[in-house]
């Protein structure tokens, strides 16, 4: 292994980890607070991607400056989060709190299937991609940066920036703000928190909306780099799940570490042994689960008989 390869593995791994973290953090947040393993997270990600295609296309169609397409990506994520999050939480999930976790997995899985079909109804089955009037893509618009002999689109730095900012802001909110402390109280004991006067319903509402928005941010940031196609949500939920399981379901630092591990392992296997790429990520997951069955950062849990 050359230094150049090592450097490439580090950068590729970091970029991929940032992408993974943005997608996985909402999943782990919702699980941590609400104990819901939200399979529909993948659909919210896809909704973010499809909506950002619609918004950016409308933006380009009006002939506005191409740089504004980034604002459209952000707007798409916010809109999806603020619409889909409350609708799903108020319209469906709130009737099911207190039900078994497995029931909620099934409910969100059903929701995932419904949303996948909804996406087909609205956007059709043709793959879409974001392209300006002269073929500009937000992915290439910011230019490139070089490290050693390799060059990367600067857009990747945006991904890293969003991931790091999200991690810092969430950690700060949880540890330092009143809202965060209330949230932690709900995480630890929902009933006692409610007895102390914390509005658990509101906490759930805000958490789910935030989680949905994070999924949509992931989709919106991914849209310029891929062709947006039905079924993209299913692809992503599997790898996001691997990330949060490695880190420990519901753990924020766990999601960050899980993303970093998966990102680096995948990059290393692609550079060194590409034939193992498919297997490597799940091998790491299995290895972690053998040593720590509840993931690296899982909190100790009181055993309930």
């Amino acid at each position: 292994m050359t230094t150049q390869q090592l450097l490439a593995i580090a950068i590729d791994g970091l970029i991929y980890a940032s992408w993974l973290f943005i997608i996985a953090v909402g999943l782990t947040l919702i699980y941590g607070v609400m104990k819901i393993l939200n399979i529909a997270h993948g659909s919210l990600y896809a909704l973010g991607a499809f909506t950002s295609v619609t918004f950016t296309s409308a933006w380009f169609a009006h002939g506005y400056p191409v740089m504004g397409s980034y604002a459209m990506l952000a707007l798409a994520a916010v809109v999806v989060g603020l619409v889909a999050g409350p609708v799903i939480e108020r319209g469906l999930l709130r009737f099911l709190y207190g039900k078994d976790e497995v029931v909620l997995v099934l409910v969100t899985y059903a929701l995932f299937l419904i949303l996948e079909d909804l996406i087909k109804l609205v956007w059709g089955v043709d793959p879409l991609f974001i392209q300006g009037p002269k073929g500009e893509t937000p992915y290439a618009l910011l230019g490139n940066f070089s490290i050693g002999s390799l060059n990367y689109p600067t857009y990747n730095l945006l991904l890293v920036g969003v991931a790091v900012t999200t991690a810092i802001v969430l950690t700060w909110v949880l540890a330092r703000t009143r809202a965060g402390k209330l949230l932690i109280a709900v995480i630890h004991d929902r009933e006692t928190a409610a007895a102390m006067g914390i509005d658990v319903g509101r906490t759930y509402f805000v958490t789910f909306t935030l989680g949905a928005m994070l999924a949509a941010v992931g989709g919106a940031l991914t849209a310029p780099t891929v062709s947006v196609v039905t079924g993209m949500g299913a692809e992503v939920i599997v790898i996001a799940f691997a990330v949060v399981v490695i880190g420990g379901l519901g753990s924020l630092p766990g999601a960050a570490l899980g993303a970093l591990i998966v990102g680096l392992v995948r990059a290393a296997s692609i550079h060194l042994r590409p034939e193992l790429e498919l297997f490597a990520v799940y091998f790491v997951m299995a290895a972690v689960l053998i040593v720590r069955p509840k993931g690296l950062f899982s909190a100790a849990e009181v055993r309930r008989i």
Partner: protein
Amino acid sequence: MDSKSPFCLKLLPALFAAVALALPATSHAQDRPIRIGLVTFLSGPAAGPFGVPAKIAAEAIVESLNAGKVPAPYATKGFGGIPIELSIIDEAGGATKQVAEFRNLVERQNVDFVIGYIGSGDCLAVAPVAEELKKLTVLFDCGTPRVFEDASYKYVFRTRSHATMDAVAGALYLLDGKPAMKNYAGINQNYAYGQDSWTDFTAVMSTLRPKVEVTTSQMPKFGAGQYGPEISALLQTNSDVIHSSLWGGDLEAFMLQSMPRNLFANSQLILVAGEPYLHRLPGNIPDGTIIGARGPNGAYAQKSALKDWLIQVYKQKAEIEPNYPAYSVAMAFLGLKAAFEKAKAKNGDDTEAVIKALEFSTFDSPSGKVMMKLGKGHQAVTGTSYGVTKTVNGQITLTNIKTYPVEQVQPPEGVKSLDWIKDGMKPGKW
């Protein structure tokens, strides 16, 4: 189990017999249209570039056939004067689901013929079931040579060439234009078609140029979407050539992510299944990319009345020109029509007679002459063509087109593709 079960079990065979008797005979009475089950991707990543164009083409072809507006020798209405109707099924969902759907088509919807299957996995899974149910099934688009090289069928046909020629002609074209190449890399999806495609290509290259080296073989997961590390790895190898059989959303994502990184500044790109994307990729595919169309389809088809007809009827339904899956589906309908009418004129139009007529037949298609010469007369062969991209007025066109005859790119009957390639690709007798 309750005590009534044995009685019920005894009744079952009788029930099946009654149902079987109630089914109409396979011969086609004039009073009922010929029902064809069409199986193609209507959802998922293969729908946009393959499944939907095939569906649009099939519907346009059937309308035109029923109106009797297809050029000679296909001018009779429908199949031998009998109108055709389609029963369209989504191919998405995997091989197990497709086997169930196939049984539904045959046993419940009672179709006369099935035309279908883009995925190689679906073709391999459905073929034995077609045989079991004795339903004449025409595979129209899947590529794996294994269908007729590893098995032999009576009721299953494939009216397009298998994928071996993509690798053979692709390598010949590449070496023609880049005789001094020293090495090459590959990026192919980690599933049946991607692996077969890479295996064939490397086998052809090591036969034609044993000294040319493989730098890296990237095998991302099907539908991976993110190719950053793969592109870095390819960039680092600085290979003369990059071979790829990526298709669908994966190909588009790969191009979107690799173009800004100048991956192809020093590397010649060859996309063996690139043709369906050309209208989607202006600005995102470098000029000079070698493009395959899985046969002499699309821009590679020779000018003919049938080609003009396909373009015209397709364009009435979609704004763009038909791509290779549309040409593939045309071959299936026209091949079946020719056989049906030949059988009808000779000794009746029941399934057995149509099978006899289709075996070893030769028929005209928008892609030129198709010969059912492999797989005991069940597998079609054609020559093929390759060309390179050139952007003209913002549209991608294909230039420097070279055509390769059958004997140069296809193994003869009874020889497995990989053996033929490793044995030096000696032209067979056709």
